């Protein structure tokens, strides 16, 4: 009954980042086999151990079955119809940003991520990834002065091979799951961060992932290592053009925190979600996991998931070190025919470990939004605690929200607390705000951001404002 026409008008609000950059790319042929993997590895001039890592993963992947337990509905993916390597053509060796194709710089400019010396963001170092490769990383010298390494993972393979060999695949083993195995076999680029002992990273680090071509998958790999008593805040943003085909994005992120180290990992995911009929959009099948290896180490995930046709991700923490801390703060918003199945796993292994989960799911339109999480207390996790809070908000009467909390405790001397709630934006609430002069759309977004407040408070300042705006934009016209 509420403003039917208004709803129809604004639903057509275009996806702001849906443009395609017309640039000459180097692509390999569609399809996946051992030769393709060898070719990717060769293009990246990788050492043998890495090629072996890939081939082993590929063998495992071939024996695995695509998971279906999440109950997501989508057309079967033809893995032979995907391009596994696509890179914009540019000069062999680029020594400065001035040599980067202006079209690429322009693309990132349009996305609000200026990279050039004059315009670059002043308080954040950015690694910009375009399809399969990293284009540029800002503030490298400044960071190097503090011993911080921030570069693409391809460069890290060349320049910091010892670290890669030591840590790659130690948090998310190649055989972990179907999509992690696929990523391990074909990953192209991504970011690498190393914070040395005792260093607090002087600025936020950020990766911006851009999918440009419609027929290639994106398989990035991120590895962050925080040595003893170091800390870092890392942000990740994602967008893609609008295509009527589905693009596969299967990333792996691994975090390692040693004694007293802390990693804060924030994501604002706004991949193209498909249109109102559910045509097109990104399949976002991502494995993210952090290992609190050291005593009193801390890993905190915060995510704002608004894009993608399907999101399937569970940023998790393995709490090994005594008194280590894991956190997961999530806002997942789905509209139209989007599906999100997201949550976390908090695996308490060490004693006196602590975890907090705050999940806010908002479902509008005909979308499906599920929280799925596991809290596990191992036999040695004495005196460990978990607190989980999962809230769902329904907008309209066609959307669905589910909560699947799994709890396993093998340690009687530990505490697990779980709270859950579901609410709906009522017509009376909307009328109350409207009768105070607040426009319909603004009233909805005020209530949604009120609902998400606990999570937004965890985001870095610049991100929090952006997240608020993003939710408002995504929700336009969703209340009917």
């Amino acid at each position, binding site marked *: 009954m509420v403003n039917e026409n208004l709803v129809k008008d604004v639903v057509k609000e275009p996806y702001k980042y849906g443009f395609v950059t017309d640039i000459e790319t180097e692509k390999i042929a569609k399809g996946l086999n051992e030769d393709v993997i060898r070719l990717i590895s060769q293009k990246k001039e990788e050492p043998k151990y890495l090629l072996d890592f890939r081939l082993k993963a590929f063998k495992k992947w071939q024996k695995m079955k695509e998971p279906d337990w999440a109950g997501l509905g989508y057309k079967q993916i033809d893995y032979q119809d995907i391009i596994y390597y696509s890179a914009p053509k540019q000069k062999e060796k680029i020594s400065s940003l001035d040599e980067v194709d202006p079209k690429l710089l322009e693309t990132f400019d349009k996305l609000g991520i200026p990279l050039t010396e004059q315009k670059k963001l002043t308080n954040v170092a950015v690694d910009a990834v375009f399809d399969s490769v990293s284009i540029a990383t800002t503030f490298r010298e400044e960071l190097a002065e503090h011993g911080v390494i921030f570069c693409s993972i391809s460069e890290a393979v060349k320049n910091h091979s010892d670290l890669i060999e030591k840590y790659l695949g130690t948090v998310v083993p190649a055989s972990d799951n179907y999509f992690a195995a696929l990523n391990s076999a074909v990953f192209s680029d991504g970011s690498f961060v190393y914070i040395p002992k005792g260093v607090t990273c002087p600025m936020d680090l950020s990766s911006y992932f851009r999918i440009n071509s419609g027929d290639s998958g994106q398989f990035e790999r991120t590895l962050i290592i925080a040595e003893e008593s170091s800390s870092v805040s890392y942000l990740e943003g994602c967008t893609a053009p609008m295509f009527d085909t589905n693009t596969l994005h299967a990333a792996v992120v691994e975090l390692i925190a040693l004694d007293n180290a802390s990693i804060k990992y924030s994501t604002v995911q706004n991949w193209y979600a498909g249109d109102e009929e559910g045509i097109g959009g990104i399949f976002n099948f991502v494995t993210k996991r952090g290992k609190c290896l050291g005593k009193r180490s801390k890993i905190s995930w915060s995510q704002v998931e608004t894009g993608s046709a399907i999101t399937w991700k569970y940023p998790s923490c393995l709490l090994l070190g005594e008194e280590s801390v894991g956190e997961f703060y999530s806002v997942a918003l789905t509209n139209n025919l989007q599906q999100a199945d997201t949550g976390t796993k908090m695996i308490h292994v060490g004693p006196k470990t602590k975890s907090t989960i705050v999940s806010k799911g908002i479902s509008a339109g005909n979308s499906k939004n599920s929280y799925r999480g596991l809290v596990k207390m191992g036999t040695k996790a004495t005196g460990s605690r978990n607190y989980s809070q999962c809230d769902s908000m329904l907008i309209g009467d066609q959307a669905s929200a589910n909560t699947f909390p799994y709890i396993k405790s093998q340690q009687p001397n530990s505490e697990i607390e779980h709270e859950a709630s579901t609410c709906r934006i009522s017509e009376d609430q909307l*009328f109350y705000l409207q009768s105070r002069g*607040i426009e319909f759309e603004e009233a909805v977004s005020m209530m949604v951001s009120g609902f*998400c407040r606990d999570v937004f408070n965890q985001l870095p300042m610049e991100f929090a404002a952006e997240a608020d705006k993003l939710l408002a934009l995504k929700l336009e016209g969703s209340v009917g």
Partner: protein
Amino acid sequence: MQSKMKESDPILEVENLFASTDNLPILKGVSLTVYPGEIHAIMGRNGCGKSTLSKIIAGHPSYNITNGDIKFLGENINSLEPEERSQSGIFLGFQYPIEIPGVSNLEFLRVSTNARRKFLNKEELDTFDFEELVKEKLEIVKMDHAFLSRSVNQGFSGGEKKRNEILQMALLEPKIAILDETDSGLDIDALRIVASGIKKISNAQTGIILITHYQRLLDEIKPNYVHVMSDGQIIKTGESDLALELEAKGYEWTDNFIKET
């Protein structure tokens, strides 16, 4: 009585209004005209259509106007959105103010006030300037500053919710305020605070409609006119002594009235 010559134009004119919800007729021909400086009281049994009339004037989407017009400052507002009505100066004080979890009262009041100011071509207020303004207005309803940092109406007592309504009225400075049972659920002290707040905010340019069951609010704020509603119609209009008579004789007394046209 309302046909006598007035010096200025009416603020609100409700003309032979019929309205329904889910095809159920609620209002069956209501007419009411409010001039600047006037205070009108509407009384009547529960379910007689008083609250519905107030919601329809404010633009509630659940009701359909099937016949008649609502004019505000001479313009027909039948098809205006609720927010447009508020911005242009119509205020509805809710009988049951709604709780909005997570939205800070201060921010809500600021956005609301700015929407009205924008309409009036006044400069919109940033957080600091707004704090100054709201501090002043809090005095009127004797509310503590701490109310501002809480979520809108959440966990407020009945009296606090009503005072928060009057605070909003003070900030929005409406041309006409329709106060739906603002006195219900208030103790004597709170009633005095609310009543004196309403008096401070209103002036010779504003109109007020008080919807109430009780004489005690009308002791504090003396109405120019009292209307009695029954079954979706105004069946009797009189001056303030009508309310006293009603209090003494009860609504049964009104059952015998023939609709005054």
